[in-house]
């Protein structure tokens, strides 16, 4: 006890003392006379980082080697070593700076200097000269993705007017952006700027062309990679590029910045971040077709007792990561969900069905401590589990009779269904699709190729479905906000240029086989490129091996993070209401996860345990996080991305329709399907259903999770109020209302049953009383027995309608 007080005192004392100061980055090397490096002075105060870069006093131990200005910018003077020091109020920090190559001859490099200058100045952006058609006859490659082409454009076209070797200052590339000559794009930089000097000196040096030997960017790093800041704080970022020649350079000045959430943080052109709200934002950095981000956080102003976190139920590693995030943001988790909430939620999320009244009663009465784990295990073995996930993967693979004959659609669907039933590992599932050959009626997976006859569409949908990457932009130019280049796009597409298809024996049957010829040309280079899976290893153009096998190997390799992340995010989103990356199928580097540590851990766990989807589902459902209540506390009202509570979600269209069928006891009739088929058992989204269309069933036309909609609409309300679907179920002669009356059940018994089957709980007395009163009041006072019975039946139907259109029914909570 005494010891704790002493310790607490020490902690308090250290908070009052001068904050710890350090300089970022921790080591700096300057190469050549034009190298510059921004330093950051970071102080730690009250557990938050503070950027003191502009308030410390900077000094150099050896100004003859390296100078530092008041803003922390280091300039080389001669080769050697200098120590740069930052001091403020008694706090001191220092960093060693090595200077090299100041005597070496220096010229600006087209690829590594001139292009970045033009990119940052916006010359080659999509709306200006980077447009597909260029601008006013001057066309650059978008964001400088092809320096060779840009060099040619600048130096050889327009009979040399763009560049004047004899008089650099008279070059159009300098006259225009400084508006000495009228420029529709306005003023981009000043004649006194570094931008101007880079281009002018490069011209004066005789416009040295880009060369294969130029150092290439191999990666980016950012300082600080993450920062826990105070409200309203400012934070300068420093971005460094690592090059193939081993050098590391400060490229902050040439980096494009953007914020993932401007409600939390803004960033200006120079990389200065300003926090203007609470929460977390990712600052995206874009340099030379590379992207990275820095995470900046201002915790919410909540007072949360340590016991709140201590009582959070931690069942597996998911909970550790969620808890760490909630602590860092100062958000308290909601209380654990009750058994009746859990049982309903588990049935809906895992199998797309409601538990029956009997199943609910049994679960609630079960006293075994591990009953939730048992329930999860049981659900994973149910036939409805197979229905639900087969439907989900059919959405993903676009199964429908729109472009497949009925027999082909069934063969495709049945293959998916069988795969789910046997819990086929996800890598095997993908390999089956991409490496099989033969008849589509024997191997249903092959219909994926029949649906995607165009290799371009196939390339885009495959990357969307299995990698969560949207490649479409790169079809015509480098992806503007991603690392994918147009070259990578066509290298990837060329993997699918040899998928042969011919008619089988029966209509709708196709034989898919690997051809040994066939190429897809890069549209600008007008030649095929070596088939290469995105960032994988190229195949020899001359090889006659099945290119799809090369692709599948790369796709399903445990090292291919996109593959496991993509499916993990989809499964996570199914249960948690929102993907760790949102939207659930947009897993690009510039769209950071709301909990990167958790995302990484889940993906790794998945890929190192045999890509076992059921295992992943079990881990998610078993976590304390999944089992939290949906009811908010004072601190997590607005949180819908850090999983501090269960995110309430509307039942998907098919699940909702099936649930209405189940509670009313009246199945939905689907034309050409056997009586009793549930909506989730349909292999096809072309089956006509006004209900399903109104409630957002996807068309399975484009591979996009956004095709399914769960937003409420007036059309939905009109349909349940006036439409045929629900009204016919309620009034059916063999429906629950009619049956209950035939059995002579009391209103109270009926209500108990309806609450159990619709809400998975008993009604409270306060809820029941007014309902019973209303039912009584609406019994007919006069008339024949028949009239009275009819009046009671109608009242019961109307009460059921009220229950089945309530929020508690329409939502999963």
């Amino acid at each position, binding site marked *: 006890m005494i010891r704790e007080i002493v310790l607490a005192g020490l902690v308090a004392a250290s908070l009052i003392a001068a904050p710890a100061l350090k300089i970022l980055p921790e080591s700096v090397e300057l190469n050549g006379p034009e190298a510059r490096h921004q330093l950051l002075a970071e102080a730690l105060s009250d557990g938050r980082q503070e950027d003191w870069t502009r308030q410390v006093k900077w000094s150099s131990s050896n100004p003859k080697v390296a100078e530092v200005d008041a803003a922390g910018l280091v300039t080389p003077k001669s080769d050697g070593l200098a120590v740069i020091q930052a001091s403020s109020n008694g706090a001191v920090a220092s960093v060693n700076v090595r200077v090299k190559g100041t005597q070496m001859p220096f010229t600006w490099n087209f690829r590594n200097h001139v292009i970045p200058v033009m990119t940052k100045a916006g010359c080659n952006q*999509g*709306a200006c000269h980077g*447009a*597909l*058609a260029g601008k*006013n006859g001057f066309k650059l490659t978008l964001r400088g993705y092809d320096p060779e082409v840009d060099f040619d454009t600048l130096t050889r076209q327009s009979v040399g007017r763009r560049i004047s070797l004899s008089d650099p200052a008279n070059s159009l590339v300098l006259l225009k952006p400084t508006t000495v000559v009228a420029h*529709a794009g306005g003023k981009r930089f000043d004649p006194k700027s570094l931008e101007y000097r880079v281009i002018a000196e490069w011209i004066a040096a005789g416009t040295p062309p880009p060369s294969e030997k130029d150092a290439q960017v191999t990666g980016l790093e950012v300082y600080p990679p993450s920062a826990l800041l105070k409200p309203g704080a400012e934070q300068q970022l420093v971005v460094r590029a690592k090059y193939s020649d081993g050098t590391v350079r400060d490229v902050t000045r040439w980096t494009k910045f*953007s*914020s*993932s959430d*401007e*409600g939390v943080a*803004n960033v200006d052109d120079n990389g200065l971040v300003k926090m203007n*709200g609470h*929460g977390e934002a990712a600052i995206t950095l874009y340099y030379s077709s590379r992207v990275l981000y820095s995470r900046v956080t201002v915790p919410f102003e909540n007072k949360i007792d340590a016991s709140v976190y201590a009582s959070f139920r931690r069942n597996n590693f998911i909970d550790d990561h969620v808890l760490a995030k909630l602590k860092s943001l100062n958000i308290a988790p909601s209380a654990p969900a009750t058994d009746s909430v859990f049982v309903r939620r588990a049935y809906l999320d895992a199998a797309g069905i409601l538990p029956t009244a009997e199943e609910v009663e049994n679960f609630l009465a079960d006293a075994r401590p591990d009953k939730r784990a048992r329930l999860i295990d049981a659900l994973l073995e149910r036939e409805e589990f197979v229905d639900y996930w087969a439907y989900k993967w059919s959405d993903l693979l676009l199964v429908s009779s729109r472009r497949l004959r009925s027999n082909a659609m069934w063969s495709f669907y049945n293959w998916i269904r069988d795969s789910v039933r046997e819990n086929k590992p996800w890598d095997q599932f993908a390999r089956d699709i991409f490496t099989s050959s033969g008849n589509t009626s024997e191997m249903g997976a092959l219909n994926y190729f029949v649906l995607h006859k165009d290799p371009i569409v196939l390339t885009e949908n495959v990357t969307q479905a299995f990698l969560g990457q949207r490649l*479409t932009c790169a079809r015509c130019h480098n992806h503007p906000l991603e690392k994918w280049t147009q070259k990578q796009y066509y290298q990837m597409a060329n993997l699918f240029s040899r998928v042969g298809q011919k008619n089988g024996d029966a209509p709708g049957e196709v034989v898919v086989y690997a051809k040994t010829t066939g190429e897809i040309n890069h549209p600008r280079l007008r030649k095929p490129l070596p088939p290469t899976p995105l960032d994988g290893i190229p195949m020899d153009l001359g090889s006659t091996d099945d290119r799809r096998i090369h692709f599948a190997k790369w796709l399903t390799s445990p090292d291919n993070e996109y593959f496991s992340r993509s499916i993990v995010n989809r499964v996570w989103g199914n249960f948690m209401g929102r993907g760790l990356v949102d939207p659930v199928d947009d897993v690009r580097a510039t769209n950071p996860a709301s909990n990167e540590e958790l995302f990484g851990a889940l993906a790794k766990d998945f890929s190192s345990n045999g890509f076992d989807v059921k295992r992943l589902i079990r881990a998610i459902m078993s976590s304390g996080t999944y089992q939290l*209540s949906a*009811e*908010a506390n004072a601190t997590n009202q*607005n949180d819908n991305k850090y999983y501090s*509570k269960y995110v*309430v979600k*509307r039942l998907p269209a098919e699940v909702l329709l099936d649930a209405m069928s189940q509670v009313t006891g009246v199945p939905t009739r689907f034309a050409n399907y056997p009586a009793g088929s549930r909506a989730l058992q349909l292999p096809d989204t072309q089956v006509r259903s*006004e209900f399903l269309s*109104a409630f957002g069933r996807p068309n399975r036309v*484009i591979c996009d999770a956004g095709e399914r909609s769960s*937003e*409420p*609409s*007036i*059309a*939905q*309300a*009109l*349909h349940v*109020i*006036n*439409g*045929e679907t629900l*009204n016919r179920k309620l*009034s059916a002669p063999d429906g629950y209302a009619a049956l209950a009356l035939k059995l002579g059940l009391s209103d109270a018994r009926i209500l108990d049953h309806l609450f159990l089957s619709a809400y998975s709980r008993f009604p409270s007395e306060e*809820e029941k009383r*007014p*309902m019973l009163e*209303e039912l009584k*009041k*609406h*019994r*007919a006072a006069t008339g024949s027995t028949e009239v009275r019975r009819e*009046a009671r039946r*109608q009242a019961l139907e*109307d*009460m059921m*309608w*009220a*229950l089945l*259109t309530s*929020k508690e029914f329409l*939502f999963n*909570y």
Partner: protein
Amino acid sequence: MFRLDADKAVEFCDGLRRRDFLHAGSLSFLGLGLPQAMGLKAMGAIDKQKENRNCIMLFLVGGPSQLDTWDMKPNAPAEIRGPYKPIKTNVPGIEISENFPRMAKNADKFALVRSMYHTAAAVHDTGHQMMQTGRLFQGGIEHPHFGCVLAKVRGPKGDVPPHVLLPRPIGNTGGNMPHGQNAGFLGKTFDPFVLNADPSDPNFKVPDMLPPDYLSALRVDRRKNWREMVDKTVSKFETSQDARLLDSTFHQAYTLMSSQKAREAFELSREPEKVREKYGMNRFGQSCLLARRMIEAGVRFVTVNMFETVFDEITWDIHGSKPFSPISCYRDLVGPMFDNAYSSLLEDLSERGLLSDTMVIAMGEFGRTPKVNPAGGRDHWPQCWTILAAGGGVRGGNVVGASDEIGAMPKDRPTTPAEVAATVYHSLGIPLDLELPGAQGRPIRLVDHGVEPIRELFA
């Protein structure tokens, strides 16, 4: 079959007789009865004289070519001026393409802005965002459509929604970005009422607008009350926006159902056949006619999307190759479709005395390349295009701005999407310095400081 029918006075145990639900009529449109208490002093500044101003926005999805429509360059080389010839209009000095003969007779009713441009990426989606909200979406913030802002500031008039979108939202146009057709940060409560049906369909009606005949009005009313009883706010739904929105969609559905006037507004069959034909018996033509009926019924803002996508459909998006459209469609299909619908709408509104209070703005998301491409089409060109404005204080027969000799760049009075936003808000009488509540309560100005309406339009 036995029916408890409202017409037969049925007595209940509580001794009451119930009124016909459909005549209840006491519902107002969602919690929107009054303008939202925005706690902003700017509210007081709303122009009282313009309280009844409306707007119809015709969105010309795909991006009309300025050179083949309303900014002809007959003296430019053949590869620039394209296949069409200019014709004179009823306003001396204004010439438009021969594809729009009826517009030529109505040029005194509308004004042209021939110097539109934007600087974002030349994809459809960016233009959709900017032309419908005035802003490019960055950093995760989705800005609201003009009509959604009006819904928030003014609320509904009568039993109809304040903002209706016809016939369907803009779908996939290739960019995977939001199109700026929703309420964005204002919240889904202010999203438009979306028709989601084709008004040119012979069987067109808003689905499920009335109860089936086996369900008496009385029972519909009872169900409504019981649903409210059952659905007493459970705390777990308080923080779910979708759950809150569900309540308002039910409320809106009941309001629509219970108003005869609102129901009839959607019934195109009430229009004489001649009138329907005048607008063109196609999706866009009938949507424009429906837009007029909406305004007459009290809708404040109607958005009509001329097309839903640019793929595999004949639209303004004339790249000249599949899956896009050929330039000839301006003569054969798209041009006449627009000419008839637009001219009829202006004529009708004018005859009925509605034009002075209803701004009709027609615009695409960008222009098209001055030079005809090898496929005989024109590609995206956000550097310069033309939009049309009429009514709501706009002086007809008026040309604002000009492009250069090949329609490539604004030569005179370059005009941005933000200025279009300011112009629409100005016509509607919403002060430009109004602050809307953004994420975490951060106020977001209606338009950025310094952005002004295109005042020449109103001069």
